[in-house]
């Protein structure tokens, strides 16, 4: 086995991982950009997406692709309810209220799932498990599907934000709220839409990861911390930045795990944060503004 093949395999592993990180981080940064809320419950919505997929495929017996669609739609629907009950009332309030509110959502969701499913890990079976070999490099089918779906979702999001009236309105809110009042953009509606969109992306990430790893109620906590790191590296509120940073972290983790130490792997994202905060505090694509 040549060293080049092993290196390529590490790159492929990292690429497949970065798709998932990207989906979670993009949703997080989108919500921050429009609602100016740091969503501490984001990881729990990712977990919820995975459990909804489990319910749809293992309990209702739906095929995997249908389970994914159902999981994304249901997480977006749950997001609408949560937005009405716990986000809208605090959207104009202080930073602390927003942190407390999303933190409360996170605890309620994690513990509700713990109560219903216990902490025992579950597995989602897709029927598409398998692997494709190309020039000595192996591609897991489930991971390739996850990556392609992830990138398609990202592309669709990009088109939506750039090309449609609604997308432009969302960007307008992120850029200048006062101007939106002047031209008559409904801020509540945009906030609601963005929140559902961001959570839908987190739910999609959860649905895609469910067959690859086992799922458990605490799975969101590890991912949300990494997503925060990615969002900070990419620049808070920047969708492009989050996608690029996800790629850096995914590839970096794979290479560190393969060539340095598996124990250090999970620390890499936070090491990058420290470097970025020293060299370019606003992140790669971030605007130099004061967040707190």
């Amino acid at each position, binding site marked *: *086995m040549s*060293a080049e*093949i*092993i290196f390529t*395999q*590490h790159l492929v*592993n990292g690429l497949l*991982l970065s798709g998932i990180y990207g989906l979670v981080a993009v949703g997080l940064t989108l919500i921050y950009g429009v609602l100016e809320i740091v969503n501490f419950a984001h990881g729990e919505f990712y977990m919820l997406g995975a459990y909804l997929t489990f319910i749809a495929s293992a309990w209702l017996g739906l095929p995997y692709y249908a389970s994914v669609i159902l999981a994304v739609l249901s997480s977006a629907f749950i997001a609408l309810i949560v937005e009405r*009950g*716990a986000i*809208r*009332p*605090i959207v*104009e*309030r202080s930073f602390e*209220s927003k942190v*407390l*509110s999303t*933190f*409360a*959502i*996170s*605890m*309620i969701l994690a*513990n*509700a799932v*713990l*109560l219903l499913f*216990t*902490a*025992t*890990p579950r*597995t989602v079976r897709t029927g598409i*498990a*398998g*692997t494709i*070999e190309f020039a000595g490099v*192996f591609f*897991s089918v489930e*991971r390739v599907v996850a990556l392609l779906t992830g990138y398609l979702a990202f592309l669709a999001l990009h088109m939506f934000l750039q090309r449609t009236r609604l997308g432009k309105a969302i960007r307008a809110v992120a850029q200048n709220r006062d101007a939106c009042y002047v031209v008559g953009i409904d801020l509540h509606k945009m906030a609601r839409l963005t929140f559902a969109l961001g959570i839908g992306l987190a739910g999609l990430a959860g649905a895609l990861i469910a067959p690859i*790893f*086992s799922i*458990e109620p605490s799975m969101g906590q590890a991912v949300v911390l990494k997503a925060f790191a990615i969002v900070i590296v990419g620049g808070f509120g920047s969708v492009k930045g989050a996608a690029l940073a996800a790629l850096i972290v995914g590839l970096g*983790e*794979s*290479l*560190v*795990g*393969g*060539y340095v*130490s*598996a*124990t250090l*792997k*999970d620390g890499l994202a936070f090491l990058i944060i420290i470097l970025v905060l020293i060299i370019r505090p606003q992140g790669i694509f971030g605007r130099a503004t004061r967040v707190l």
Partner: protein
Amino acid sequence: MLSRKHRGLSNTIAGAAMIILLFIGVGIGYVIPREAPVAQTITVTNVVTQTVTQTRVETTTATVTATQPATPIKIGFSAPLTGAGAFYGQQALWGAQMAVDEINARGGVLNRQLTLIAEDHRGVPAEAVSTVEKLINVDQVSVIIGTFFSSPTLAVMPIVAKAGVPLFSPVSSSPLIYNQTGVQGNKWVFKTNPSDTLMVRALAKFMFDVKGYKSVSLVAEDTDFGRGIVNTLEAEAGKYGVKVLSKDFVEQGAKDFTAVLTKIRGLKPDVIGLGITGTAQIELIVKQSKELGVKIPLSGRYDIFAPELKPYIEAGEAEGFNTVTPYSPLFEGGRNPEFVKSFKARTGQDPHWNAFLAYECVYVVAKAIQKAGSSDRAAIRNAAEGLEYDSVTGLKLKFDENNHMFPYCYIIEVKDKKFNLQVIETAALK
């Protein structure tokens, strides 16, 4: 657009709602980990009557008549009933409860029934500490069986010693426990299973002598258990002149092994030596190996009997996998076939080593209580020292000066989609 006044009001309402939500969240967080354990018969006894009856039983031992129902003897049980070790905890609880039911059906111990009080620590050392403190202080148990994982057991050992409650550990296998108990200092902890040092020694002979592996890559979880396995396997490999090509530690409950497996694929060792707990984890390792085209047999300590591995074994994708276990339902010696039969009739599943070891541990505890002639914590501890016990496997066991027993261990190898079994006497490996 709301007026200023209205805005202020709705903000207050929203704020209040958030505080309530937060309280609910914190509340649920507190309640769930404690409520999660599998339902157990917890006998609620009035503390006053209990003490009275207990004294009566102790002073009149043999003359207790059937007219006065004696209070049960409480045995605490701390295990990972949920979390990555949920399968183990469930099996252990089944095994322990089966032993308790058998003993109670025969009239109990000292004419008193045994009651098992089970607590869930989810595999977390800090939670194991709180379950044990609850069992000692709230439930006032006479003795504790637990905690089934090494790091939690090591965490509770100083606590039981300080409180003066005997702890019988049926499954935890870190050599660090052996080095602290009996004459080594902690006189309150007893262990009824062989430590990893002995089991891995037996396995190393099989790996490097019988199978003739010349190189090995080690992957273990970053816990007392995992590090213990790697240290022992590395030392043994040195003795046999086998090359250790890599050594990697992963988080307990890790899910992505692709980086480590890709690295190992490049190193091409003859065998991978694991130190991994968790049935989901071993499945993920096998699944990801398959996806990465890694075709290297797995050895070391992991759960070859995990239900998640069954499809891979049946598909012939686990040929040559081997490991060492402290028990096997396939063993045909002693009274084991009868044990397997009644366990299966009761639960519908084969007994896992967690079930068997917990089952035997309850019998060891019952024998210690019988010998002590009372449910007093210190009396049980004194009686347990040097206690002899006839194992279901037919082996005569005895606590050594380190409060350890040395039952058989078993080398298991997958051959033609079936388990091959080799029985090893651990006492000879000391």
